[in-house]
């Protein structure tokens, strides 16, 4: 059997793929955070809780309504996005003129509320959810066995990320969005409905979190606490990448997932802390983040 540094290549590639799967979640979530932060100047702590709601929506859709994975892959992000729009209209909207920290505190409180509610209904143990028929099993590539669902997670996440990048960087809607990020009042004076744009942007950002939640449902345990543990890692990813560039957020997310996967092979004890260690090093060498601009 082929080995690299004494590790069987099969195990190495397997962890690499697992790392890419985690990295996909990091990428989609940090992309959503970056889009929201760009326009609203709010760090959405509730992102993790909404990701969890996405996963639960997939499970509930199947358990209560009999809707399959593919239907929920479309419906769950819409439902989470709608919840986001309600949150923005009812609560967040009133905090824009204050210090940005209040947005973080509000979404933190919402996280506690949402998680507490879900925990009181569903407990802390995970709910099982199986991958759709078409994506079960694995493909033998010769040098490794590729589990189909994991490959699908990576492919779907990268596609969604690139589509988001295309819309923001290459379309007229994206141009307006970027303009509003730079100077919202000026764009408003051109007759663009900026408040509506802000609402929809928040809705879209959290819909991305919901989408990631559905993708995660078959591979991770669906539990009320699945989001908050992830979101803190995503925060570190955001600090490492900087929120200046969309492609930067995607690349940093995937890259750190791979780094985490490799750490699991070579130094398992450090695998839960490696992202934070990378963050500390980046802060020392390049405080603005890998893709960030110093303000």
């Amino acid at each position, binding site marked *: 059997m082929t080995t690299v540094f004494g590790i069987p290549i099969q195990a190495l590639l397997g962890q690499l793929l697992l790392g890419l799967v985690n990295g996909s979640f990091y990428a989609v979530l940090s992309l959503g955070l970056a889009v929201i*932060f760009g326009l609203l*100047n709010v*760090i959405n702590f509730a992102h993790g809780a909404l990701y969890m709601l996405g996963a639960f929506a997939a499970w509930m859709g199947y358990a209560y309504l009999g809707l399959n994975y593919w239907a929920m892959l479309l419906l769950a992000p819409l439902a989470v996005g709608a919840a986001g729009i309600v949150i923005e209209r009812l*609560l967040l909207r*009133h*905090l824009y003129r*204050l210090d*940005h*920290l*209040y947005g*973080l*505190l*509000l979404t*933190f*409180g*919402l*996280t*506690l*509320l*949402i*998680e*507490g*509610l879900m*925990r*009181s209904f569903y407990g802390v143990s995970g709910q099982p959810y199986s991958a759709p028929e078409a994506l079960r099993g694995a493909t033998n590539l010769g040098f490794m066995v590729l589990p189909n669902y994991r490959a699908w997670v990576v492919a779907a996440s990268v596609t969604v990320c690139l589509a988001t990048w295309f819309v923001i960087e290459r379309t007229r809607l994206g141009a307006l969005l970027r303009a509003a990020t730079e100077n919202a009042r000026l764009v408003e004076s051109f007759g663009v409905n900026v408040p509506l744009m802000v609402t929809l942007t928040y809705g879209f950002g959290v819909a991305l979190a919901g989408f990631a939640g559905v993708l995660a449902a078959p591979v991770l345990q669906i539990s009320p606490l699945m989001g*908050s543990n992830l979101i*803190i*890692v995503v*925060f*570190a990813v*955001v*600090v490492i990448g900087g929120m200046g560039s969309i492609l930067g957020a995607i690349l940093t997310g995937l890259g750190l997932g791979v780094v985490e996967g490799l750490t699991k092979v070579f130094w398992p*004890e450090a695998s*839960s*802390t490696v*992202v*934070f*260690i990378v*963050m*500390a090093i980046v*802060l*020392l060498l390049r*405080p603005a983040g890998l893709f960030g601009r110093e303000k």
Partner: protein
Amino acid sequence: MNRQALLCIALAAAVAVLPYVGVYPIFAMKVMCYALFACAFNLLLGYTGLLSFGHAAFLGSAAYAAGHALKVWGLPPELGLVFGAACATLLGLAFGLLAIRRSGIYFAMITLALAQMVYFFFLQAPFTGGEDGLQQVPRGMLFGLVDLRSDLALYYLVMAVFAAGCFLVWRIVHSPFGQVLKAIRENEPRAVSLGYDVDAYKLLAFVLSAGLAGLAGATKTLVFVSATLSDATWQMSGLVILMTLIGGLGTLTGPVVGAFIVVLLENKVGDFGMAAARLTGLDWFQRLGESVTIVTGLIFVVCVMAFRRGIVGELLAWRGRRRAA
């Protein structure tokens, strides 16, 4: 003697007789530990304008350090407290050096991430006892004289620590150093242009705050004779923000009031849920005690939306309005 000093002495006397009028000493000590923790946090958020989302790391690391020193090394309690606070201060220096490189929202995210790293470290480190934590930490003899196994003796030690911590915060806030911190909070570019080395001030404030939070954590270990992982979780970091927010940001007594309310809430939410279940006939309320986070989350949202000055802040504003009228 001015009115303020008299008021302080009266308050101290009132706190000193609490165990004799039926207040459960452990409850009062818990309030004082959290109050000191919140005062330390307020020094940073309320007076310097820095939101640290990782203060649980200091509380937790000092709790473990003190517990280890008392239980494994057999140090006397006074040295255990000092050692705990010293460890938190050093950790604060490391956090501070990294975190002040970014400001605002990034500062919050960095401290949160670093604290999570510390949490994972404690989860895996051999000396913390993992999920169980350190249990049965001996309280020992204070200065070799006072047996702290008596709750009452410990009560007066905790009270002394708390008073000393509060006095220190008061001194810091009213010193020229404290004035510079407030200047940084109000207008950082201006403080820079006036020639202050803003980063050095922020770092010192951060380290002081971490050390005081550590003192609270070490004291907590003595009170509960244990140090557990829950002290180092992000939920704890959130809780101290809530205490400070409910009481009033940037007020000296606000965090104390906030800590009292939060501790009371944690103890009483279960009873409240039972009462609500009886009143409404909904069984769901019976489980409220297990999910305190629903209530804390709700209060958090209400405070941020409508009650940003906090209780003490509102009182001060009300008094200000009355004087102006």
